[in-house]
């Protein structure tokens, strides 16, 4: 294996060489250290296939102690690294371009379940849905449910502050994490939060969740579990215009009823789903469908269902279908959760965007997205968390067609700007990673970005953990130079 020079940092760059591979093999075993290009192929992309970056080396510790030992060896040698869960991320956040990739998917133990207090302590590699399955016997579940929940890990969810359809009512990852034991890039082990009583002091759990692997590696995560709802009702309402569907969304929200989920699926997506193996029985001639789930105590739920149904109808819904049983409910959801998979039938490549706009601006933003797609001759599909204004415009295309690829990228950039222009943000749940770096300066001033850099350096002074992600360094005013600067942050955040 040839030595790989690493991107320059303010510190002496670490070198990935045979000696390092041997040191790491001494900790985890030779089979758990990969460095041949053929072995590393799996790790050159995450869930966003438009990026390919080959790690210099990948190491797969199997225990907490091994993770710590690996991190300490890297610290000793100043080698940058990228933590990775299941690699389902959608922002290129887990790509390790010539760096050491630390795979945490072998740390899959659920360390404790405290059903009475609705808590569980898990290792970072525990798969999201595996936790919900393990606690189902107690009538509990883990609420954040990203669409990739069958594969993604709690550690990855913590890094990305992952959401999911049901976070409209139940909140995102940060609302469900109580405490974290983490190893910092220096090798220091820290306990964040309080596993028992109230926490006082800085909310370092809040800071760590969503730090996209830039602050260190979670070794152990204490999460809050949620009670399973006594009753669940799922509705599918279809509309002949996007606008009337968006009005129904606002109407439902205004009632005070908080649906467990409120998802919108546009016509292009409906057609892709219906012509795939995930066909869910969505009406293919509708301009949009809303998938609405209400849950909670059985008493009073039918009343809410009736209210929602009547709002949909008065907003122009053609039909409102209420799932009769669990099988029908699962089928309605499958179409939504597998929508991106179904796009695979349309074209070879798919770019999925993630932005949030104020709910009341949805109709105009959807209109604008449509116009942008037409102008660039690309087909934009929308399937998204309408209840919280979290859009996921996606475009299927062929990467072999250079002209089309260029148009796709132009369209995506304009869509992001359109979302920011109405007061939105550039990512609601996928994270910034590599993919959104260029958009950070649209919503944050250089001073805000510098402040984020300063926070990062508290955890990682050498900037070795997932370097080059989240904060675009060129846009980030140097922290030390800042006091003399003018107040320039207005208008941008």
């Amino acid at each position, binding site marked *: 294996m040839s030595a790989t020079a690493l991107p320059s940092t303010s510190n002496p760059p670490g070198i990935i060489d045979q000696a390092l591979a041997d040191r790491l093999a001494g900790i985890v075993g030779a089979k758990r250290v990969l460095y041949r290009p053929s072995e590393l192929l799996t790790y050159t992309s995450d869930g966003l296939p438009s990026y390919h970056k080959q790690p210099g080396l990948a190491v797969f510790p199997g225990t907490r102690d091994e993770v710590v030992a690996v991190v300490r060896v890297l610290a000793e040698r100043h080698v940058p690294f990228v933590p990775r869960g299941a690699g389902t991320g959608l922002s290129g956040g887990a790509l390790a371009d010539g760096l050491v990739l630390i795979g945490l998917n072998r740390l899959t133990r659920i360390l404790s379940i405290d059903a009475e207090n609705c808590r569980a302590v898990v290792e970072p590699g525990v798969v999201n849905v595996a936790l919900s399955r393990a606690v189902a016997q107690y009538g509990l579940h883990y609420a954040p449910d990203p669409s990739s929940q069958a594969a993604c890990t709690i550690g990855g969810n913590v890094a990305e502050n992952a959401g999911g359809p049901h976070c409209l009512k139940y909140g995102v990852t940060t609302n469900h994490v109580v405490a974290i034991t983490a190893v910092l890039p220096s090798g220091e082990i820290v306990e964040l939060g309080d596993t028992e009583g109230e926490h006082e*002091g800085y909310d370092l759990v809040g800071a760590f969740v969503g730090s996209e692997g830039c602050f260190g590696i979670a070794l152990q995560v204490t999460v809050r579990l949620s009670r399973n709802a006594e009753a669940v009702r799922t509705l599918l309402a279809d509309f002949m215009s996007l606008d009337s569907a968006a009005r129904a969304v606002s109407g439902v929200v205004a009632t005070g009823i908080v649906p467990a989920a409120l998802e919108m699926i546009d016509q292009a997506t409906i057609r892709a789903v219906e012509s795939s193996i995930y066909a869910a029985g969505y009406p293919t001639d509708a301009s949009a469908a809303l998938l609405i789930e209400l849950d909670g105590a059985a008493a009073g739920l039918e009343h809410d269902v009736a209210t929602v149904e009547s709002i949909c109808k008065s907003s122009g819904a053609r039909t409102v279908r209420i799932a009769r049983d669990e099988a029908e409910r699962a089928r309605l959801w499958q179409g939504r959760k597998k929508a991106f998979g179904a796009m695979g039938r349309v074209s070879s490549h798919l770019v999925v965007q993630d932005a949030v706009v104020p709910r009341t601006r949805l109709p105009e933003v959807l209109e604008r997205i449509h116009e942008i797609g037409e102008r660039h001759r690309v087909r934009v599909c929308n399937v998204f968390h309408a209840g919280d204004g979290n859009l996921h415009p996606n475009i299927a295309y062929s990467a072999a067609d250079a002209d089309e690829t260029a148009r796709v990228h132009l369209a995506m950039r304009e869509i992001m700007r359109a979302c920011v222009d109405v007061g939105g943000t550039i990512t609601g749940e996928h994270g910034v990673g590599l993919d959104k770096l260029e958009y950070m300066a649209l919503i944050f001033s250089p001073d805000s970005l510098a402040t984020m850099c300063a926070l990062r350096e508290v955890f990682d002074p050498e900037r070795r953990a997932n370097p080059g992600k989240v904060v675009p360094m060129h846009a980030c005013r140097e922290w030390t130079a800042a006091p003399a600067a003018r107040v320039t942050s207005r*208008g941008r955040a």
Partner: protein
Amino acid sequence: MTAVALPGVGALVDRVRDAAARRAALRVVGQGTWFDAGRPVLAQETISTRDLAGIIEYVPGDLTLTARAGTTLAEIVEATAAHGQWLALDPHGGDAGTLGATIATASSGPLATGFGTPRDLVLGLELVTGAGIVARGGGRVVKNVAGFDIARLLTGSWGSLGVITEVSVRLHARPAVDESIIVPLPAKSGAVERVRTLLRRIPFTPLACEVVNAALARALGAGAAPAAIVRLGGNREAVAAQRAAFDELGSVREIDVSVWQRLRTIESRDAIVFRLSALPARIESVWTSAAALEGEGALIHAAPARGIVRCVLRRSDGTTAAAASVLSSTSCSRIGERLPSELWAILPRPGADALSRRVKHAFDPAGVLNPGVIGELE
């Protein structure tokens, strides 16, 4: 997005930079309601965000609101009530305090059982760091993972990392029916635990549920026995069923919703106030620790679902000594709200760990913002 610089923020920046240059410590306050609570802040000069007031953006359909830090909770209550909405934060002390201070101190009240604490409701904020830098974290939309979570870090930082100048919060629509009930409980051990297990078992979370001791029930004009006071929300049918679920505790009767306002303002500014907490299943033992103060006339209430017990004592030598004995003998989490200095000295200092000290240094290199409130006294 705001388009123009507030002159007020500019003045604040100048003030902080000047203080940082002189290394002169600043006491950062909103209305100043918490900083007369005996917290050990070592500062001679005070800056207030009181004049940075007013709602900047409120679109009811978005269920979000952005206001300058000095806006009082009362103003937000009034603006949102007109649209059948509320900011589901009811910190003790009432609505005279500012939004900025509520977020900075992560203060909550009974509604935390149903809606969580400020960290669950804050969407984004603007701050002036100790170096006089204006920065923002988060945004104004309900879901946002862009950049590191400066907004949550500042929530509960007690003004020691930055002066919060603007806050965006999530609102909730008020439930169709908002009803409060009271259930007298037997004055014997196990009563709080019974409420907790009921809450764990029933298929809904009430908006609020506090167990109050007999002295507090009397002070609230809510009878002479310990009681569970519960706030229920939802449609009529849901609330009726919720109410029925509490029948097993005792005889349920309706109580006017104003009881919550009385609970929030029950203590005087010179009272001794602190909280004890543990995992919810330990609530009975935490309650028992606090109940040692009943002989001193303590007003005690607990949020069983959250594992938190809160004690209010009239200040005297006797009550201070009794509180000292409780605070130094329990092993659960102990958080001071209003204490004489000798009691602050008993409590562990929050934020004394190395990482928190580094956070403080990164945001406030000259150490001028509320020194002493979090972290070791230098």
